[in-house]
């Protein structure tokens, strides 16, 4: 007979669930509103979503305060794990979402925004990501991941044109394969240790001194494949360019930030302890992944003719760059990951938002795709401020100081240097130089070429509206004045990462 379980409510620490519950409630609220009175304007849902996201953010601030006092907190039968990584990554997830959601207030109409479900799914997705990062239980990670992913596939498809369906199907199918890899990997870990909690796995493996190294490697392999898919490491990256191209620019920008940070957290939790345990194989493999991802993605980005696709490859390259943090595995490198990602979020959201405001419904004759380079020819002549801002984002992505991403690169390379990865540091630096070329290409189109005769001069701000412009302005200010931001961020991040034991 089973004993009855006596659990005190305090020991459950239900407060740890609060940040995830808020968006879920928000999503349900949206569905309920729609049920009672359909046909509301999208701005209502945007505002509801923003309100809930701000509440979410506030609750995160609260848990951050709690963390800085009490340290890591476990909750709800030790499934929830609220440590520094969880809090930091949730800040990024929620923060980026707050910035993202007003991008739906475009002046042109797009299909997905006519659905209240779009905003509900969006909030569910955020909750999914939050669950994914706030636990070390592989089951919850898996379920959270799938929740978020399924919502994301739908969001992409809801853009409702051929390319977005194609993108969604590709993403979905490969995602299903990746999910299978994830479960297989978890299974092998479970077979090895009898547990699906990463801490427990680490303890058991350390306890027997990695006797079953071959098993461990199989598990790691499948985990790498699965997370490599999420993080778009070469050769698991093939979905990324197509999906970015197929989805709307704003969604693409979002995808380049939020799902990846969730992926990084999981990767950090799983691989970090293995690296520290001296699994050389993983170190070598990650090294190869980092270098190949950075370099190959850069090379492919060089030859693109569409800006959004170029940015897709550049995001892959950035992901490879940041993956180095996990390879290096020091407190500094893990802090650098977060710093980099915050700054990258500013810049990348900004640049995708710039693409978003220039989105046309019909592609004119001189363009081969939504955002082909020659669309931007001579932009400085027709919309100088937009051109300058776009150039700003490109320079930031290229790592030209003092714009945002430079500080991220600086700190990241420095962490490589400090950990003795000299060659890696050099490769990272040289890759930044290669990357310079394709960012420069856009600047050259904008500033140095003549506008195409007969082109619509308003094209660059075709889709703009006050919210979009504000978001871009916000991103631009963040990009330019990042140097003020860096120090507090770094202090904050470092203390959180350090106190989480990474």
């Amino acid at each position, binding site marked *: 007979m089973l004993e009855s379980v006596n659990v005190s409510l305090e020991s459950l620490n239900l407060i740890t669930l609060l940040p995830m519950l808020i968006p879920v409630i928000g999503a349900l609220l949206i569905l309920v509103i729609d049920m009672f009175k359909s046909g509301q304007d999208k701005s209502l849902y945007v505002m509801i979503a923003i309100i809930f996201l701000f509440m979410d953010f506030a609750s995160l601030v609260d848990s951050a305060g709690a963390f800085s006092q009490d340290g890591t907190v476990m909750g709800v039968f030790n499934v929830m794990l609220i440590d520094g990584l969880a809090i930091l990554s949730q800040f990024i997830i929620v923060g980026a979402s707050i910035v993202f959601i007003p991008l739906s207030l475009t002046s042109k109409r797009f299909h997905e925004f006519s659905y209240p479900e779009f905003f509900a799914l969006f909030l569910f997705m955020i909750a999914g990501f939050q669950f994914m990062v706030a636990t070390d239980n592989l089951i919850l990670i898996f379920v959270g991941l799938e929740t978020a992913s399924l919502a994301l596939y739908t969001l992409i498809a809801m853009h409702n044109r051929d390319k977005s369906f194609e993108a969604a199907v590709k993403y979905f199918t490969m995602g299903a394969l990746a999910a299978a890899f994830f479960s297989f990997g978890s299974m092998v870990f479970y077979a090895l240790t009898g547990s699906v909690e990463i801490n427990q796995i680490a303890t058991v493996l350390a306890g027997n001194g990695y006797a079953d190294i071959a098993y461990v490697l*199989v598990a790691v392999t499948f985990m790498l494949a699965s997370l490599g898919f999420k993080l778009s490491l070469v050769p698991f990256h093939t979905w990324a360019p197509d999906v970015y191209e197929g989805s709307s620019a704003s969604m693409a920008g979002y995808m380049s930030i939020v799902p990846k940070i969730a992926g990084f957290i999981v990767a950090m939790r799983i691989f970090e302890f293995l690296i520290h345990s001296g699994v050389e194989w993983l170190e070598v493999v990650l090294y190869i992944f980092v270098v190949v991802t950075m370099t190959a993605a850069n090379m492919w980005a060089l030859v693109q003719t569409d800006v959004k696709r170029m940015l897709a490859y550049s995001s892959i390259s950035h992901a490879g760059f940041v993956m180095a943090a996990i390879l290096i595995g020091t407190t500094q490198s893990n802090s650098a990951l977060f710093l980099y990602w915050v700054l990258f979020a500013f810049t990348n959201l900004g640049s995708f938002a710039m693409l978003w405001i220039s989105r046309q419904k019909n592609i004119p004759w001189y363009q081969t795709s939504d955002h082909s380079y020659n669309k931007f020819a001579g932009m400085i002549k027709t919309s100088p401020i937009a051109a300058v801002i776009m150039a700003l984002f490109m320079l930031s992505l290229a790592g030209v100081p003092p714009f945002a991403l430079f500080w991220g690169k600086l700190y990241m390379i420095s962490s490589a240097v400090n950990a003795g990865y000299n060659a890696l540091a050099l490769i990272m630096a040289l890759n930044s130089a290669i990357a310079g070329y394709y960012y420069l290409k856009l600047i050259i189109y904008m500033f140095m070429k003549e506008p195409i005769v007969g082109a619509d001069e308003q094209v660059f701000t075709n889709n703009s509206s006050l919210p979009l412009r504000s978001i871009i302005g916000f991103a631009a200010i963040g990009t330019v004045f990042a140097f003020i931001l860096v120090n507090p961020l770094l202090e904050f991040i470092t203390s959180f990462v350090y106190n989480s034991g990474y």
Partner: protein
Amino acid sequence: MEVYLYIALFAPLVGSLFAALFTATPKKMFTGVIASLLIISAFVSSTILLMYILNGGEPVQVEMMTWMATGDLYIPFGFVVDQVSVTMMMVVTLVSSVVHVYSVGYMDHDKGFNRFFSYLSAFVFSMMVLVMSDNFAGLFIGWEGVGLCSWLLIGFWYHKESATWAANEAFIMNRIADLGMLIGLFLIYWNTGTLQYTEAFAAMPGLDTEILAWMGIFLFIGAMGKSAQFPLHTWLADAMEGPTPVSALIHAATMVTAGVYLVVRANPLFDLIPHVGLFIASLGAFVALFAASMALVNRDMKRIIAYSTLSQLGYMFVAAGLGAYWVALFHLMAHAFFKALLFLGAGNVMHAMHDELDPFKMGGLKKPMKWTFIMMTLASVALAGIYPLAGFFSKDLILEVAFVDHHYILYAVLLFTAGLTAFYSFRLVALIFHGEERYKLFGIHPHEAYKYMLIGMSPLLILAIIAGSFKMTYFEMVTALLPATEYHIHSHLTFWIMTIGTQLFVASSIVYAYKKYANNKITVPDGTSKMENSFAYKLLFNQYYIPYIYEEYLVKPYRELSTIFWEQIDLKIVDASVDGIAGIVYGTGEKTRAMQSGNLSTMLKWMVAGTVGLLSLAVVFGLAARYSDEIMAILSGLGV
């Protein structure tokens, strides 16, 4: 006295700048007049300074301001008027005054009249800096300055290709030598810690002879360039493209003697390294003969005089190299007078002949150009060294120096050269002024130069005649600074035999020249005569093929090498490799982008392939780890 020093130094500069103001405007007579007056005032100041020095005054030394000071290096703008520099100042200001006055007439019809005076006065200023500086750096300023002015003046008629070419050649050759000079300066600085003459010379006796020898050699390389010694001599003859007053002033009297001045000025150094001195003397003797031989057959009036200058510079270097610095300086002075006179005379002839230079096309000019004839003849006599003109005192002295120092080969060479000198000088005089009036064939109506030009030349004429009489005064003055070696041939008999013998030899050369060239049978050579086809003639006429060799084996290869460097190396190797790296990166991207075929099935295959690849790595590693003991055992069994 300092006021006079400053006047002497800066009056030419003022003149130059004043004239420069009008370079863009049409001819203004007053620029020439004012420039000339300023030069004359510099001459007067120099004369006052000379008097002061002659009367036993202390050398005047001023330090105007700091030029460069860094680290241990301290270079001021310092000037000194001592016995040596005052001599040079006199020569320079005197000759330049004459040339200025002369030029007012000579350049009368030239569009660049104002510009000419600006350049000419600038040259005088540079020359004054050169001779008056109290340190090597200041000397170098003047050294380069005269080079610049020489470039400007040779290329004065810049629309002429030959003139600009000659100007560039002169500048570049001088630069080569200047490099040597510069290295010499560096050596002096790093070994003595200063570039001031007095301090540097004071420190020199304590130095290693080898270092001193290098210093001497490098300084002399500098001197070789300015004084056009072999093998850097070709520019001098080409420099005759410039206006004739320029040739008189720069390429006869002053600038080319700067090299001699340098050796004289650096006498404490060269005294310490007699073997280098001997080399200098030998080279001087060689150049004397070498240049004279080229003058024998040349058919360009100015070039003949230029070679003669070269030859005389050789004489001066013999004297300087053998330690007879005062003799060298004396010959320098005397030579300046008669050679400038000769050039100015040639300028008159050119004017009269509408810039014709070939003496074979002249003849019989003594009638229309009586005064010029007289002056040039006297100057040639002085050049030939006939008693009692200036050349006798200075040139014979050099022969004596060589003899007394037991350098009989040098003596023989110099003696022979003296004969050649007389021959070619009078060949020229004969061809120009005597014989048939061949110029009529060319429809030219010669006329005598302006009166004031002739009057202007007269001081030179007088000095060319009487300069020898200053010998003792001069000797007493300069030996305060220079080694006062007296060169007396102890045996009176030898002395007289030598002197008279030399005079006879020279005189017979003159007579021979006259006989050969002063008759009425001379025609314009057409390249058919037997002599013209002889090897020796061709060799001499083509200047020993040295310009040809330079052109073929230095200039052309340099040009070709430059082109190769640019087109083959810079563009095809250095630049192409940079672009190549970029191209490889880009090309790899272009080639491998096929991986992204857009087909979902391919994408899935890539994903599986990636996983399987990792898996194989894992298996290899895992098995190796599992069976590490066995593997080690097998490996050790194999003896690894």
